[in-house]
């Protein structure tokens, strides 16, 4: 079962991630009263990037990007094999560090500042991500995702604050406006392409694929709040995930970028107010 889940994640995550990306671009275009690119556009892009001549600024970039991808895939595999959730989040942060290295190993100031902001974004997300793990532990007495999905009722009933906090930092994790500090999916930002400025051709394709794996992993955590031992909770979880993704697209298209200081204040405030209060109640009720 575990191996089947891992293989399913390995194969389906980039497909679904790319498809969601394509739908995202299409819906964004429709929100702006444009026709928009084909749904499969992200796959065409990645295919083209692999077809181009490999271009680097330093040779270590390729190695760092491959490590970033491998660690991200590894995190997802751990999550889907039902392993310790907290451990997943630690490996996830490690993966992020390799993206930072890939950005600062170049001499480009744009890439460097993008890397710094990537770390800053990690800092904004981390409390909410770790508290999510703690919340699940207090509720189910386990960090293991395999046991969490076998719970009697959905975790969101007892953990609405954690859910809200995680939904908030999802925008930061997906690098969507108003929190697209380190790199933007849209052109014309002050940092050229931020953390991805010096990634060309196949390295950019690796970044893109890693982002798909990461998005699917993040949405899976959202789903974990819904899924319980009742099989009907799975379609419900898919609906909630799609709704969350739509919400992200809506926020992306209706908000301007925030200053990084404001991002830190807001994300920590929401984490403390929502997840923190939920945590206190959970401890008192126990």
């Amino acid at each position, binding site marked *: 079962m575990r191996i089947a889940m891992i293989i399913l994640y390995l194969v389906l995550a980039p497909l679904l991630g790319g498809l969601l990306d394509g739908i995202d*671009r299409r819906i964004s*275009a429709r929100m*702006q*009263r*444009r*026709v*928009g*690119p*084909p749904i499969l*556009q992200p796959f*065409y*892009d990645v*295919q*083209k990037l*692999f*077809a*181009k*001549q*490999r*271009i*680097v*600024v*330093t*040779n270590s970039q390729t190695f760092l990007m491959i490590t970033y991808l491998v660690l991200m895939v590894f995190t997802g595999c751990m999550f889907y094999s039902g392993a310790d959730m907290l451990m997943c989040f630690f490996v996830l942060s490690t993966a992020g560090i390799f993206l930072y290295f890939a950005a600062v190993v170049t*001499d480009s100031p744009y890439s460097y500042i993008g890397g710094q902001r990537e770390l800053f974004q990690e800092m904004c997300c981390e409390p909410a991500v770790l508290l999510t793990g703690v919340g699940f532990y207090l509720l189910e007495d386990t960090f293991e995702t395999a046991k969490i999905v076998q719970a009697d009722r959905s975790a969101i009933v007892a953990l609405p604050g954690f859910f809200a906090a995680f939904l908030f930092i999802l925008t930061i994790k997906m690098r969507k406006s108003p929190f697209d500090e380190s790199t933007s999916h849209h*052109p*014309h*930002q002050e940092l*050229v*392409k931020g953390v*991805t*400025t*010096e*990634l*060309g*051709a196949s390295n*950019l394709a690796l970044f893109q694929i890693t982002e798909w794996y990461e998005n699917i992993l993040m949405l899976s955590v959202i789903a974990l709040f819904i899924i319980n031992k009742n099989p009907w909770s799975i379609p419900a979880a898919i609906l909630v995930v799609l709704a969350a993704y739509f919400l992200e697209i809506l926020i992306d298209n209706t908000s301007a970028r925030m200053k990084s200081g404001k991002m830190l204040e807001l994300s920590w405030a929401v984490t403390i107010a929502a997840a923190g209060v939920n945590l206190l109640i959970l401890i008192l009720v126990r």
Partner: protein
Amino acid sequence: MGKVKRSPWLLHYDASSCNGCDIEVLACMTPVYDVERFGVVNTADPMQADILLVTGGVNSQSAEVVKQLYDQMARPKVVVAVGICACTGGVFKDCYNINGGVDTVIPVDVYVPGCAARPESIIDGVVKAVQIFQERSDAHDKYVKEHGESERNLNDPDAAAREGNPADFFDAITKTSEGSRNKEAEKK
């Protein structure tokens, strides 16, 4: 590999344009013209771009920049000169500070005339450029199949020399520069 023509990413550079053509280039992205429906992305990064779109004539200050941007783009790449100034120098042709069109610095593949170039003709030019991009990509695939993958390090000054000039791959480029020379002869 496959059909790369579905995903042409543009890099737009203003060499010395009056912003007339630049506004029209940006107009292509708006809901009215929406070039993103062809998969076009307006990227600001030469390392990620496939098609270099230059507006305005080249002067001594922008010549180096145009050259560098072209150099930083990964193969296969295509150049489009947008507007009459980028094509020939336009009304500024005889000015003391203007070198002339973009083809005085880098090989240009598609010329889009007009002052300012209409969004319709810019899209037309980009569609032509996309066809050339596909041809070059096929040539690049062939080259990679015969000679193996070539990795280029932008910080390595000898890299360009070691890469060599695969004749079949540069065929298209040579043809275009010949074309531009012929065009200049016609002008005279």
